């Protein structure tokens, strides 16, 4: 057995106990959305399901999936199950086009979220003795605030430094005696490089013990490198704003997958092509039903993340199901420095700018440890040739739009018309040259 503190008794229930709780909560959730969300009511009726029809967990597979596009169709609050006066917090992530995906929390949801984070930070090794530096960007994205609440809940001292300004991050780490680092894995590696440039040896000069990484996937080699460079113990955690934010699952020191808080989330693995439910250990798309959320319960959400589920009891003592490292995506979503971006969003931005053509090519690669993105677009407006200033301002305008609408820093290359590849059928507009996961 591994020596690892367990935050909550619910992490060690026996399977039958989980199943009883899950069924009861699933029924309640379905009743709730049936009553409060016309969109779900319609959807369930179309599938021939009344709330009373759910009699076992097996009946879950009859319920229609929810997909990201359902959020777009119901923008901003159409999927909410609580009146606005009960909402105490909003967050948002990028949608597939234009409008963001909006999520809301009631007071109880906030308590649930803190509880979930308390569990994953505890399983990562953090205690009330620790000083936790949160280097996720604070704002509409769920990452920073989610970790923040849970870390406070367990009594850790939180440094809400947000992302960026790397040299200051290192200085604060040193001066405040940071023991836990919370960031994306790629930012952690970037920070390590900056620390080295500053002449700081993390093992000698800093006090880091724990690294809690999320927001994007990572490989075992990245983990090893982070451990090696920082002299800390790195774990990964998983979540997405549609489900609650971070806190859906996290790794314990056994490093054999991420424990899903099953008393709050009901996971399934499906074949992404057929939608058929797959068995334990089989690799497919993760589908999650939230069973305790008030403001925004979501039925069978297709995460598009490819993984597998494992139910045997873990060395750490927890009995919650574990999901393996995310192996990829079943859609074309890109994760750029922890920010989710769909090629369709980039297209949306480009189409609204005059002077350039509808064709584009996106190139993603690593510079050092950071994701870099380049967008090639075809110049079509000859009037801009009068001066460089005009071309330069077009370039700036495209960059600015990509930054404000999508939150990404991209280098923009203007190229001549008809020089970008044309596609018949499905376009391959994204060239991802980052390490294959």
């Amino acid at each position: 057995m591994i020596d690892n503190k367990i935050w909550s008794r619910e992490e060690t229930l026996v399977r039958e106990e989980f199943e009883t709780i899950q069924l009861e909560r699933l029924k309640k959730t379905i009743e709730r959305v049936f009553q409060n969300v016309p969109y779900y009511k319609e959807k369930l009726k179309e599938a021939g399901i009344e709330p009373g029809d759910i009699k076992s967990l097996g009946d879950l597979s009859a319920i229609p999936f929810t997909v990201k596009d359902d959020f777009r169709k119901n923008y901003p609050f159409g999927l909410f199950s609580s009146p606005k006066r009960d909402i105490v917090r909003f967050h948002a992530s990028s949608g597939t086009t234009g409008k963001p995906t909006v999520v809301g929390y009631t007071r109880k949801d906030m308590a649930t979220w803190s509880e979930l984070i308390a569990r994953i930070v505890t399983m990562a090794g953090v205690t009330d003795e620790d000083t936790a530096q949160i280097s996720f960007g604070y704002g509409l994205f769920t990452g920073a605030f989610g970790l923040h609440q849970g870390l406070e809940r367990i009594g850790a001292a939180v440094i809400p430094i947000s992302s960026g300004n790397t040299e200051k991050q290192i200085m604060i780490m040193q001066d405040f005696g940071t023991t836990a680092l919370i960031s994306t894995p790629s930012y952690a590696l970037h920070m390590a490089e900056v620390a080295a440039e500053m002449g700081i040896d993390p093992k000698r000069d800093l006090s880091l013990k724990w690294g809690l990484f999320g927001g994007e996937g990572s490989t075992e080699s990245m983990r090893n490198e982070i451990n090696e460079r920082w002299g800390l113990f790195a774990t990964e955690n998983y979540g997405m704003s549609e489900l609650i934010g971070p806190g859906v699952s996290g790794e314990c020191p056994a490093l054999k997958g991420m424990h899903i808080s099953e008393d709050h989330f009901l996971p399934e693995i499906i074949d992404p092509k057929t939608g058929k439910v797959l068995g334990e250990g089989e690799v497919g798309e993760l589908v999650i039903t939230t069973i305790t959320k008030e403001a925004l319960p979501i039925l069978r959400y297709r995460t598009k993340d490819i993984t597998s589920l494992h139910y045997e009891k873990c060395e750490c003592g927890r009995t919650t199901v574990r999901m393996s490292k995310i192996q990829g995506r079943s859609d074309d979503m890109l994760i750029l420095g922890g920010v989710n971006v769909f090629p369709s969003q980039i297209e949306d931005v480009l189409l609204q700018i005059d002077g350039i053509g509808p064709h584009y090519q996106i190139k993603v690669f690593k510079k050092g440890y950071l994701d870099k993105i380049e967008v090639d677009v075809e110049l079509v407006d000859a009037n801009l040739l009068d001066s460089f200033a005009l071309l330069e301002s077009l370039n700036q305008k495209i960059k600015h739009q990509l930054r404000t609408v999508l939150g990404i820093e991209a280098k923009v290359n203007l190229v001549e018309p008809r020089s970008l590849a044309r596609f018949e059928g499905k376009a391959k507009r994204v060239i991802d040259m980052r390490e294959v996961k």
Partner: protein
Amino acid sequence: MLIKQISIFIPNKKGSLSQLTDILIAHNIDIRAIAVFDTTEFGILRIVVDDPDRAVEILNKEGIVAKVSKVIAVEPEDKPGSLNQIFSVLRDSDINIEYIYSFIMRKKEMPYIVLKVDDQEKAVEELTAKGINVINKEEIYAK
């Protein structure tokens, strides 16, 4: 008095100039002057040819971003300070130069200077008034 110049968008890569000149040769268009203004990623090629309107039509048809714009060509005298005189006239008239390049016509001794300024009409007026030889388009386009 303004002459027509063609501005062409060219990517900074091998062969992009010859690709252009190939097209112009094929259509029997003569280049009188050429200048490239570039950044690290792309360039704007500016050329003066004997038949600018036809040249642009051909280039556009080939999918090349090209545009006719008007510039001033002047012929400085062959003596020290003649360029300074041109620039002084423009400065005193509060006219800004956007860019400048020069080229040689074989039968002439002195190079021509091509100027793009923010107020072209006024520049031509002021330069002419100060006795500077502004070249008319016939002189440039003639074979």
